[in-house]
């Protein structure tokens, strides 16, 4: 039994690949594209912004997940109100970047996310704190990469860390009965 996922912390774009239009209500933009799929969407966004006359105020970055936060932090250093963050790529990378952006004070209505792939997840083990990355769906069970506990992938995603909450699925069973 689980609630309507709209009511949870899991964004719709982390469940289904989503391709929104560019946010043209801003005045300056940072676009972060992960991988070829992300680059494809970024191209469309750039064209939409250009047709609204805002092309000169765009910073476009093609990055891998590790570089994104650095790029974001650098762009934010001189950003003014009216700036927007748009990101496109696998949901896992987008969740992580959204977490960093939230920590840096970017509001939800200043972010646009397009997801190209939604099957890979970062799962945070609440028991040992390790993060395991795997292709796994909500409600499936995944062994923790560090403590090997069997983690149920719960429908909660950290706004700050971008990881899903994973907890021991067989905690109620006596140790001997666990195979």
């Amino acid at each position: 039994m689980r609630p309507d996922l709209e009511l949870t912390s899991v964004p719709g774009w982390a469940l289904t690949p989503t391709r929104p239009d560019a946010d043209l209500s801003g005045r300056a933009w940072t676009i972060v594209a992960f991988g070829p799929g992300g680059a494809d969407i970024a191209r469309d966004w750039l064209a939409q912004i250009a047709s609204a006359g805002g092309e000169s105020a765009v910073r476009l970055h093609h990055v891998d997940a590790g570089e994104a936060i650095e790029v974001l932090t650098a762009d934010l250093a001189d950003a003014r109100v009216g700036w927007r963050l748009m990101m496109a790529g696998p949901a896992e990378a987008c969740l992580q970047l959204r977490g960093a952006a939230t920590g840096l004070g970017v509001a939800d209505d200043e972010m646009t996310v397009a997801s190209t792939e939604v099957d890979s997840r970062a799962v945070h083990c609440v028991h040992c704190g390790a993060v395991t990355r795997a292709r796994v769906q909500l409600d499936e069970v995944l062994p923790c990469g560090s403590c090997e506990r069997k983690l149920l992938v719960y429908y909660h995603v950290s706004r700050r860390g971008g990881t899903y909450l994973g907890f021991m699925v067989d905690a109620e069973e006596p140790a001997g009965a666990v195979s």
Partner: protein
Amino acid sequence: MNTIKLVVTAVDDTIGGIRTLTLADPDGAALPSFTPGSHIVVDCGGSANAYSLTGDGNSPTAYVISVLRCDEGAGGSRWIHDELALGDTVAAGPPRSAFAPVLRARRHLLVAAGIGITPMVSHLRSAQLWGRDVRMLYIHREGRAAYADVVAGLGEHASIHTGRAEFTDELLAALADQPFGTHLYVCGPASFIEYVTGAAADLGWPVSRIHLEHFGSDALDPGEPFAARVTSTGEEFVVDAGVSLLEELERRGFEVPNLCRRGVCGECRLPVSAGAITHRDLYLTDAEKKAGDALMACVSRGGDETLEVAL
């Protein structure tokens, strides 16, 4: 609602048309602290008016409010100007916060017109107390410079105007060049708020960074009569033009929590299960108004079909 008794310990009429009252506990006890930007609802000889508290909110020994005389209003401000005197006691509700500063903001840009300065003075004092980055733009009429001395204390980070053109130039320049993380606070007449928020939106400000404090609706027309039905009792009746749904329900013995009675505070929100609604309040969001399942009984009205109030 618990009411507090406050005694008028000072009256300042220095500025024409604006009366500033200092209100204190009759026994000199401390008053409840409040969040900057809070207001109290004062019983003004029968009508209830909301007034912003101008202090920083930290352990106050007095509440200071400033009341603009509105000759076309419902009479509350005239009562304060004409009837209330030093040493009198008034009844008021405890402070209510509906215009709080966002504490994680990198900077606070305060924009006020006229008597809209009052909640901003509270924000300003709190910001100075806690060392927050704060900027203020203030426009007022000649001779109505309420709290200009407090604002001027901000030095180069304050700008006070009496001319619309210079104010507008400075406002647009300020809105166009604020560091990311700034939040905008606006208080003034409805047309002023509309202008400032429109300009901000044009310059890319997202809704989440804009905070408003309304004075209240401009005088509402009496409206058309409409039919209403109360679900629990099955009672059906007509609400006449010039009578609010809230007044009609009260007359029929229903107890509906309420405070401002002018569509601002949100206290008298009632669920609606059928019938079109003519929303006239400033409280519900556009999405909530569109949903059509609740109304503010003090100002909003029904349409052609019977309004089913789920009371």
